[in-house]
C-alpha cells in the first residue's frame, strides 16, 4: 500500500524530504519537476519558454562515486535565518519550515554564505534568492512525486521504511538463527 503520510502530530507540521541515496539513478527529473513547480505556467512545455526561466531548488550532484539529490534541510535552528539581516528568511513556527518572505529580501546573499549545504542560490532577477519551499500547496512535493525510483521520500515514509527494513532483517535472522549483514546503502 502506498504510504499516505503520517499524522501531523508525529511527523511535525510539515514533513521534510529525505533521500535514499542508493536509489538515485541520476535522471534529474526531480530538478525538472522542481523548476516546473516554481514556474508561472506549471507545465514543462510552457515553463521552458518563460523569461526569466524558472529555477530548481533541488540539486543532483555526483560525488564520492554516487549520485545524490540534495535539497534544503529546513533546519530547526537554521544558519540562514540567523544570518538574514531583514528576517526575510525565518523559522515559521506553524509549518516548522524555513520560510522566505520575498518582499523583505534585500539580496545581500548572506544566507547563501551561511547555509552549510549550499542549498540557497541567487535568483534570476526577483526574487533575489531561491530555495526550497517544500511546495506549500502540495502534499507530495513536486520532486518526490517526480522521482521514478523512490529516492526521495517524506520523512515519515522514510523512517517507516527504514524501520521495517531493519525489523525484517532482524526477524529473518532470528528465524534462521544467524545474523544477516545489513545491505550496503551507499558508497562511504
Amino acid at each position, binding site marked *: 500500500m502506498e504510504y499516505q503520510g503520517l499524522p501531523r502530530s508525529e511527523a511535525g507540521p510539515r514533513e521534510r524530504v529525505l533521500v535514499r541515496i542508493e536509489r538515485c539513478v541520476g*535522471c*534529474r*527529473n526531480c*530538478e*525538472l*519537476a522542481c*523548476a*516546473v513547480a516554481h514556474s508561472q505556467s506549471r507545465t*514543462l*512545455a510552457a*515553463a*521552458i*519558454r518563460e523569461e526569466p*526561466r*524558472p*529555477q*530548481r531548488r533541488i540539486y543532483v550532484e555526483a560525488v564520492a562515486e554516487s549520485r545524490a539529490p540534495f535539497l534544503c534541510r529546513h533546519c530547526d535552528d537554521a544558519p540562514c535565518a540567523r544570518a538574514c539581516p531583514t528576517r526575510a528568511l525565518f523559522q515559521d513556527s506553524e509549518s516548522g519550515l524555513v520560510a522566505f518572505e520575498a518582499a523583505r529580501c534585500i539580496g545581500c546573499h548572506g544566507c547563501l554564505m551561511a547555509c552549510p549545504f549550499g542549498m540557497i542560490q541567487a535568483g534570476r532577477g526577483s526574487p533575489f534568492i531561491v530555495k526550497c519551499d517544500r511546495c506549500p500547496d502540495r502534499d507530495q512535493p513536486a520532486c518526490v*512525486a*517526480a522521482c*521514478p525510483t523512490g529516492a526521495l521520500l517524506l520523512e515519515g515514509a522514510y523512517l517507516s521504511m527504514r524501520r521495517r527494513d531493519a525489523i525484517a532483517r532482524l526477524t529473518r535472522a532470528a528465524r534462521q538463527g544467524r545474523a544477516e549483514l545489513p545491505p550496503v546503502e551507499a558508497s562511504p
Partner: protein
Amino acid sequence: MLTSDDIRNRTITEDGQRMLEKAEHDQVRTVWDRYQAQLPQCGFCELGLSCRNCAMGPCRIDPFGEGPQVGVCGADADIIVARNLGRMIAAGAASHSDHGRDLVEVLRQVAEGKAPGYQIREEGKLRALAAEFGISGDGRGKEAVALDLAEALEEEFGTRKKELTLVRRAPEQRRALWTKLGIMPRGIDRETSEMMHRTHMGVDNNWQSLLLHGLRNALSDGWGGSLIATEVSDILFGVPRPVHSKVNLGVLKTDQVNILLHGHNPIVSEMIAQAATDDDLVALAKAKGAAGINLAGICCTGNELLMRRGIPMAGNHLTTELALVTGAVEMMFVDYQCIMPALGQVAACYHTRMISTSDKAGFPRMEHHEFHPDNARELARKLVTEAIENYPRRVPGKVKIPVEPVDMMAGFSVEAIVAALGGTVQPLIDAIVAGKIRGAVGVVGCNNPKIRQDYGHVNLTRKLIAHDILVVDTGCAAVANARAGFKVAEAAALAGPGLREVCGALGIPPVLHMGSCVDNVRITMLAAALANALKMDISDLPLAAAAPEWYSEKAISIGCYAVASGIYTVLGPMPPVLGSKNVTQLLTEGLEKVVGATFAVEPDPDLAADLIIAHINRKRAGLGLS
C-alpha cells in the same frame, strides 16, 4: 480499482469500456495501466533533450539553463533534438520500407513459381507499374514481367540511383523543389542509412541540414518504401474496391471459431484468409461444434484484409488487448509492427493461442511459426486446423462479446475513387471549385494512451465533415471513424450541405477508408493526381493531414513526407522537439518558406479542426475560390 469515470476517460468506445470492465474483473493489466505505472515520464526525453548516441554519454541538456547546455561531445539542444528526430524518422521509414521489401520478395517468388498459394491478381496494375520502370510487357507473360519488375523494385532500395523512379508521379514543381533543396530521395535504404551516419557523434552537427535530410529520408518512405508496399500488395492481393463490412468487437462470434489477424503485412493473413474458407476446414469447425470459422482483422493487417476482402474489423491499436479479453478468440496471428509485447501475457489469461509468424518479429509468450512464401499455404492450413481444435477449450463463462457490430464501407483506393467519379478526378475538382467540397483532409495515425481512445479522430472528423471537408482516412484513425458510424452512406447526414449532396449523388460516406498506414501513399497519390490535373503543386491545394492520436515512429515519417510533399499536417501528441526552440520553430513555421507546408501541434480536436479549416480557407483564397 478503476471507477467508471476512469474507464470512460480511457476510451470513448462502448466496446472498449465494456471490455475494460471485464479486464478489471479478470485482473488483466492493459496498456492504460502500464502507462499510469510509467508516470511521471522523463522530462528530458519528452523534450528530446537526452542523447545516448555514444558511450561518452548518455547526456542531457538542462532546459532551464542552469545545468549543462551541451553534451560531452559539445552537442547543444538543437543538435541533440534534431538528431533524435532524425533517428525517429529513420526508424519509421525503415519499418515501412522493409515491409515493402518483403512484398517485393514475394512478388519475385511468385514470378519464379516458388510461392504456392500466392498469385498475380492484378495483371493490369502489374503491367502499368512495370511500364513506369521502362519494363516492356509486349508479348511477354505476366511472370516474366513480374520478375523484371521485382528486380527493378529491389534496385530502388539500393544506392545506384540519382532519384527514386516513382517520384515522377509528383508534380513537376514539387520535384524541382526537392532537387533544389537537395532532398530528392535517391535510394530507399540509402537515406535511412545516411541518417544513421549523419546522427553518429561528430558527423552532421547542423540542425537545419539534419532536418532537411530527415525530410529526404521520409520522402524515401512516402515515394519509395510505402508506395512499393501498397503497389505490390495490390498486384498480389487485388486493388481495393468499395466493400461493405462491419466493425468493433461485436464482429467476434460466440458460436464460431474466432481467428484474429494483427500486424501490418498482408502476406501471412491472406494465406490464413484462404485457408479459413477451405471446405474441409469449415467442415472440421462444424464437427467441433462451431457454426463456422470467423476471421477478423485488427490494426493495419486488418485494414489490408478489410479493404480487399471485406473481412470485418475488430478494432485499432488500443483495442488489441481488449479483443483478447472477450475470451472468445481461439487464435491470434501477428506479423509485425505495433504488436504490444504484452499481448502474450493477456492471452495467457484465456484459452487464446498466440502465433508469431515473421522471421524478424518475436514476442514473449507466443508460439513462433515462421511463414515463408514456399510454406505459407500449408502452414496456414495447419494452424487454422489447430485454431479449430482450440475451440472446445474455450471457457463459456469467460466469454463476453460486448456490443453489436457497426456497419461500414471500405475499399476506397485511388482507382476506386476515380471509378466512382466516372473515370477522372475532374468531378472532384469541380466540386472543390464550386465549394461543395471545401477541401480534403487525411485523418490518419494511431491510438496513444495519452489521448482518450478515438476521441481525437472522431471529434476532428465530425467537425471537418460538418464543414464540408471530405475526410479520407487510414490506419487506426480509419477504424475509429468506422466504429463511430461515419462510414455508411447515411452518415452523409452529418456532413455539411455541399458534401452531403456529393455523397448522396455518389452513394458514398463522407469519410472514405483508404487503407492501412502504408496506404497513406494512396492519399498522397490522390493529392498528386489532383495537382497534376490542375498543373499545380500539391501545396497550392486546399488539403491537410492530421494524426490526432499518433504514437509511432512510422507516424513521424508519414508526417514528414506529407509536409515535404506540401501538405499541412496537424499532430495531436507533441513530438519530442520542444527542447529546441530552433527545431520547433522550423517545423511549425520555417518550413512554410522551404516546402510550402508546416506542422502544427494541437491535442484538442476541436481546435485542431479550426486550424485546418482556417488553412483550407487560406488555400482556397489563394486559388481565388470563395
